[in-house]
């Protein structure tokens, strides 16, 4: 092909490119970016090549760039003439044959179909592929692409990046031609200025101003440079852009060179991007060959050439003055500005440096005009930005969004939320130079100003999503370690300051930090930010400063509680399961002891960590499951059921007396200190157990006639048989704990009296008050608050339900009420305002309710309860809801619609949340928080009244058994330490010798679950006692579960 010197040849090339792009036969295009290749795209390409060879099918095979959705790679696009472009996802080499057969027989391969594209706006041209396949979703209907607007990525995944003709076919180099023909460089600069395009490298300086500055500089030689030294961890948009569409970059640079008076362009690209370098080199060669580079470009007399320089792998070379130093052959160290590169840059000559993505925006602006460009984006930040969405998010990849789009759209709509439903904690925007944005602030529009306000930056567009498994201290340490090792060492704040900050952060993660370190780190961070020479140092403290601002409690946890909640900092966590357990049970230990056949010791390990093991073994919310590393192989170890098995084997057998005797024998010498505990629920019982073990004399004051609190009165018999509970509480009684029943603290027993008679008081009362809905009809007969209902049933009182019961709510109380009502012979309809996946109830319980015949009405909120003439419930009306914006819990907010539905019913159970009845506390002078819970110190649990401590639901609001018990345990440790003035806590616990090496092999078995008794049998109530629904594991299953543990608690690999 000769050099293009006139419009005729240009159009010929365009035709020829179009013939390749939309040939008269089917074309199969394979996404061959680095991410595609990483997922096997080369195998797919060869698979198709072979299959085409063998069958002789008339199909064109093409090598394409990447369409952006990395988690769906390899992506293959298929075009049959006249029909839409079909995208297949996760294609593997062995799929090729049948896909090819399907194409030739005019079918689709349903299990691989992702979406279709009927027409595509390349900005510089528009391609219509044709209509069809109504059953396949349009590309913009796929969540990942919804809301995306592809300007920068306009050609990515459509054209062959190695073929300039295909680029010209989609309107490429037209903008250049136009600029050269118009011959009015100043007009182009005006256009760029009017477009409000801002540098996409991070700082967001107005590109047009930068160009104008450079254009005005007088010199014999000027340079334009593309900064493709993309080095942020988690950012790879530039790589993908170059790999998929290198000519857009070249065109932008040639236009820039022309209007700014430069004759030489340089692309400074990361050497770590071999494919990008390769494709770019090929593109430059082709551009020269076709007359887009070199002398007399497009026959218009302008001369310009581009050189590719591979970077030497230093992050700091992304800073423009360091980049210039590197180009000149010096070590990449920045120098102070002024002088700015536009005055004195490369070799002392005026130089313009722009980021890859900035250059990609040039041709579209030239072709469509600034007004078109500013239509997209926010007033101060026009256009789009490509983000790399990575980390703990369901869908990852490159996302191009209009600037100003709220962060939650990116994370929840496009990224579809956390992996495996885990909750997302924060997003790190802008990589190591950026800051973290906490989940509560996901409303923030993503543009330069808004992010800067939060202490974060847009940066090059890396968005690293972090969930509850990420320790924010460790995250900031990670980023600081990166910038620390990438600091050039020239200026003191960055060279030494980052080193010191890193050492301080290391002290945090090792548990050696003190509160003073927080202040020192904060001041040092500000100093580094304000005093460093270049952008690297100035932005390096951002991750630390923002995490300290938004996640200060995590830093405090590391210092004051010696805890890393995420379980990342090794010194501060035993294993992920132990760390997730509110009681911090040493789970690997009891699994190992049981595995070694030492049941009694396993029991001792369990009960010393958790004084109500049989109850929690049945009803715990088991947060440990979510954190078990075995999940990465198959499913979590069923820790709760093994723990139940161990507890049942001893507590419910003839081993009970011996075991109890052994525990009682461990009790410490009497201390003479007297402790009062308000409430005999799980929190109070746990605290009582440990305080008694520590030798204190304990009295529990309980308003009910029997101990257990919610365990006895809120949890139905079929989940937790009361005989089991009684055995457990029996042990606590044997330790000498006194119980005073039927007495309410604050009413029957005034707080002042407790103050006078006891050395410490622990308030552990429950949330027994139903937070009443403001709903018409709640006064009717047959409307019950859930806890009242459950309590009445537990006490054997008669409750008139009728045939049909509506239960309102989605928590455990709702499910418990529903299943209880069904056991009383009612038909149940559970009304919940969100969807099933949003229900806070334990999933197994919800599923069991469904199996037992409960109906669910999701997306419905109660409107009013309708009564009959006799004043009893007749029906309930609900308003249908739809899910709107994401709220701070990461779930969508239900929004009321106009649609009303009516369900006939005889009773309504309200289970919309429980609160604390705190009249007593108000009278007593304990401070109450706005949330309606007792105010307390997060680390000491002390209330506003000295020697009065609080825990459980009283401070957290309605929660669950294990959380409640966790508070009881913590309170006991703190109160003992304060009463005795020494740390005796660890002396109470037995130590065990057991195998602490990594197991040679773990069981290959899948997870064993407890056995559900068939619905037909379980619903048969004998004497109105509901039989337990779930049977425990068999001994063999329990052993196998214990064998499935990977032993994350083993820190050093033992010698084998």
């Amino acid at each position, binding site marked *: 092909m000769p050099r293009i010197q006139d419009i005729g040849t240009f159009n010929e090339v365009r035709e020829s490119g179009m013939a390749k792009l939309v040939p008269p036969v089917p074309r199969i295009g394979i996404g061959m970016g680095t991410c595609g290749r990483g997922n096997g795209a080369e195998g797919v390409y060869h698979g198709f090549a072979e299959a085409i060879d063998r069958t002789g099918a008339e199909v064109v095979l093409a090598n394409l760039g990447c369409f952006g959705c990395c988690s769906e790679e390899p992506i293959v696009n298929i075009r049959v003439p006249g029909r839409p472009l079909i995208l297949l996802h996760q294609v593997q080499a062995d799929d090729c044959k049948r896909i090819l057969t399907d194409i030739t027989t005019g079918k689709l391969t349903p299990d691989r179909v992702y979406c279709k594209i009927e027409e595509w706006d390349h900005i510089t041209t528009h391609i219509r592929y044709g209509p069809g396949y109504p059953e396949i979703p349009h590309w913009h209907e796929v969540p990942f692409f919804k809301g995306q607007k592809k300007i920068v990525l306009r050609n990515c995944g459509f054209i062959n990046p190695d073929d300039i003709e295909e680029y010209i076919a989609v309107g490429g180099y037209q903008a250049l031609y136009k600029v050269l023909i118009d011959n009015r460089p100043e007009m182009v600069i005006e256009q760029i200025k009017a477009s409000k395009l801002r540098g996409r490298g991070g700082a967001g300086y107005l590109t047009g101003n930068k160009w104008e500055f450079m254009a005005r500089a007088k010199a014999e030689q000027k340079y334009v440079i593309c900064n493709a030294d993309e080095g942020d961890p988690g950012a790879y948009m530039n790589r993908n852009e170059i790999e998929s569409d290198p000519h857009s970059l070249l065109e932008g640079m040639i236009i820039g060179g022309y209007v700014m008076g430069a004759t030489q362009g340089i692309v400074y690209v990361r050497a770590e991007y071999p494919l990008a370098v390769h494709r770019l080199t090929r593109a430059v060669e082709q551009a020269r060959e076709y007359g887009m580079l070199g002398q007399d470009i497009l026959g218009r007399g302008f001369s310009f050439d581009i050189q590719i320089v591979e970077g030497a792998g*230093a992050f*700091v070379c992304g800073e423009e003055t360091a980049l210039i130093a590197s180009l000149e052959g010096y*070590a990449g*160290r920045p*120098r*102070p500005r*002024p002088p700015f590169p536009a005055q004195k840059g490369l070799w002392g000559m005026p130089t313009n440096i722009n980021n890859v993505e900035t250059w990609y925006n040039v041709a579209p602006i030239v072709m469509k005009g600034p007004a078109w460009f500013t239509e997209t984006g926010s007033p101060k930040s026009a256009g789009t930005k490509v983000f790399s969405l990575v980390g703990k998010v369901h869908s990852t990849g490159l996302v191009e969004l209009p600037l100003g789009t709220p962060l939650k759209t990116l994370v929840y709509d496009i990224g579809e939320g956390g992996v495996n439903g885990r909750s997302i904690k924060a997003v790190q925007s802008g990589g190591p130079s950026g800051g973290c944005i906490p989940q509560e602030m996901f409303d923030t529009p993503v543009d330069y100003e808004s992010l800067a306000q939060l202490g974060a930056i847009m940066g090059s567009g890396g968005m690293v999503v972090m969930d509850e498994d990420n320790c924010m201290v460790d995250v900031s340490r990670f980023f600081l370690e990166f910038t*620390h*090792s*990438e*600091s*050039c*060492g*020239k*200026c*003191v*704040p960055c*060279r*030494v*300051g*980052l*080193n*010191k900050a890193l*050492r*301080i952060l290391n*002290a945090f993660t090792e548990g050696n930090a003190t509160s003073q370190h927080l202040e*020192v780190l904060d*001041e*040092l961070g500000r*100093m580094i930010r*304000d*005093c*460093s*020479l270049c952008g690297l140092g100035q932005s390096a403290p951002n991750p630390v400063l923002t995490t300290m601002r938004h996640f200060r409690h995590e830093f405090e946890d590391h210092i004051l509680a010696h805890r890393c909640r995420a379980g990342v900092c090794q010194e501060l966590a035993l294993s992920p399961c132990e760390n997730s357990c509110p009681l911090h049970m040493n789970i690997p230990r009891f699994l190992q002891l049981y595995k070694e056949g030492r049941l009694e010791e396993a029991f001792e390990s369990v009960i010393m960590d958790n004084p109500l093991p049989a109850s929690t073994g049945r009803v715990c919310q088991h947060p440990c499951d979510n954190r078990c590393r075995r999940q990465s192989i198959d499913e979590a170890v069923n820790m709760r059921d093994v723990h139940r098995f161990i507890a049942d084997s001893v507590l419910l057998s003839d081993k009970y007396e011996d075991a109890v005797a052994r525990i009682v024998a461990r009790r410490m010498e009497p201390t003479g200190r007297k402790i009062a505990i308000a409430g005999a629920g799980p929190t109070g019982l746990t605290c009582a157990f440990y305080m008694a073990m520590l030798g204190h004399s304990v009295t529990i004051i309980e308003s009910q006639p029997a101990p257990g609190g919610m365990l006895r009165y809120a949890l139905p018999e079929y989940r937790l048989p009361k005989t089991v509970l009684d055995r457990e509480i029996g042990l606590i009684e044997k330790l000498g704990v006194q119980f005073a029943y039927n007495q309410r603290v604050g009413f029957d027993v005034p707080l002042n009296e407790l103050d006078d008679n006891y050395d410490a008081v622990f308030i552990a009362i429950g949330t027994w008050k139903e937070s009443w809905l403001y709903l018409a009809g709640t006064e009717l007969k047959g409307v019950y608050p859930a806890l009242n209902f459950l309590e009445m049933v537990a006490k054997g009182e008669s409750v008139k339900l009728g045939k049909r019961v509506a239960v309102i709510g989605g928590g455990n109380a709702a499910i418990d009420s529903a299943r209880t009502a069904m056991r009383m012979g009612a038909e149940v309809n559970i009304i919940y305002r969100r969807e099933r996946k949003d229900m806070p109830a334990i999933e197994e319980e919800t599923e069991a309710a469904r199996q037992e015949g409960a109906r669910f009405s999701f997306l419905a909120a109660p409107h009013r309860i309708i009564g009959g003439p006799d004043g009893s419930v007749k029906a309930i009306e609900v308003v249908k809801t739809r899910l709107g914006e994401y709220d701070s819990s990461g779930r969508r907010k239900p929004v009321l619609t106009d649609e009303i539905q009516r369900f006939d019913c005889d009773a309504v159970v309200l289970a919309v949340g429980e609160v604390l009845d705190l009249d007593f506390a108000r009278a007593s002078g304990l401070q109450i928080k706005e949330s309606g819970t007792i105010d307390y110190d997060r680390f000491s649990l002390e209330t506003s009244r000295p020697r009065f401590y609080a825990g459980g639901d009283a401070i957290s609001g309605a929660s669950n058994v294990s959380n409640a018990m966790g508070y009881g345990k913590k309170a006991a440790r703190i109160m003992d330490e304060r009463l005795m003035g020494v740390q005796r806590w660890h002396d109470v616990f037995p130590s065990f010798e057991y195998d602490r090496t990594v197991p040679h092999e773990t069981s290959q078995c899948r997870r064993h679950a407890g056995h559900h008794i068939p619905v037909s049998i379980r619903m048969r109530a004998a004497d109105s006692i509901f039989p337990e629904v779930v049977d425990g594991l068999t001994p063999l299953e329990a052993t196998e579960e214990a064998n499935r543990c990977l032993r994350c608690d083993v820190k050093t690999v033992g010698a084998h």
Partner: protein
Amino acid sequence: MTQKKLSVRIDGELVNATEGQSILQVARAAGKYIPTLCYLEGLSSVGACRLCIVEVSGSGRLLPACTTPVQDGMSVTTNSPKLARYRRITLELLFAERNHTCSVCVSNGNCELQAMAKTLGVTSIRYPHNFPKLPVDLSHTRYVLDHNRCILCTRCVRVCAEVEGAHVWAVTARGIQSKIVSDLNQQWGEASNCTSCGKCVQACPTGALAEKGFAVEEMTKRSDHISMIAGRKGVHA
């Protein structure tokens, strides 16, 4: 060509300046004190030690006085509680970086770093010391290089390149690992470019570069001579 006359305000005082002068030059000429370590009159400015940061009205950022040219109407603040705090941190960082044992140093009592600590009131270091293991280069017949005392101000690098024209010194590695090297990372005694002129020694603000044969407290430096020589026309290589 006559250079444009400007007027700037330094700590509220109106002073005359010439276009192209740095804030530091103007301030010093007006008798204002701005602390510096990497700056040496006569050598190029690199803005590395960040002690000379000042506040300039209208700019949200702190700017190094040594490399920032004055502009007409500029208003500069050379000291404030924040600047003082930051400068102290900078010094503490330098002390904590390497092994500065003043009491056994040849330059004890004649050291710019030590004097600066006294001037700025640094009496202790809040950051953990690194205590790195660093070599002492005794290979040169007349001079000694002790990396333990080096603060990487690069005055030696610049005086050698800009005044002597020998280009013996350079900085190798990066970040906290940065180190001064002679020629191609050879022992100083084997650096064939070295003319043994001793300008680097005189330019060095601490005891890192010293003449042999001096005991504790005995090494005095004459960096003013360097400025004087460098100030002569035609000296710059």
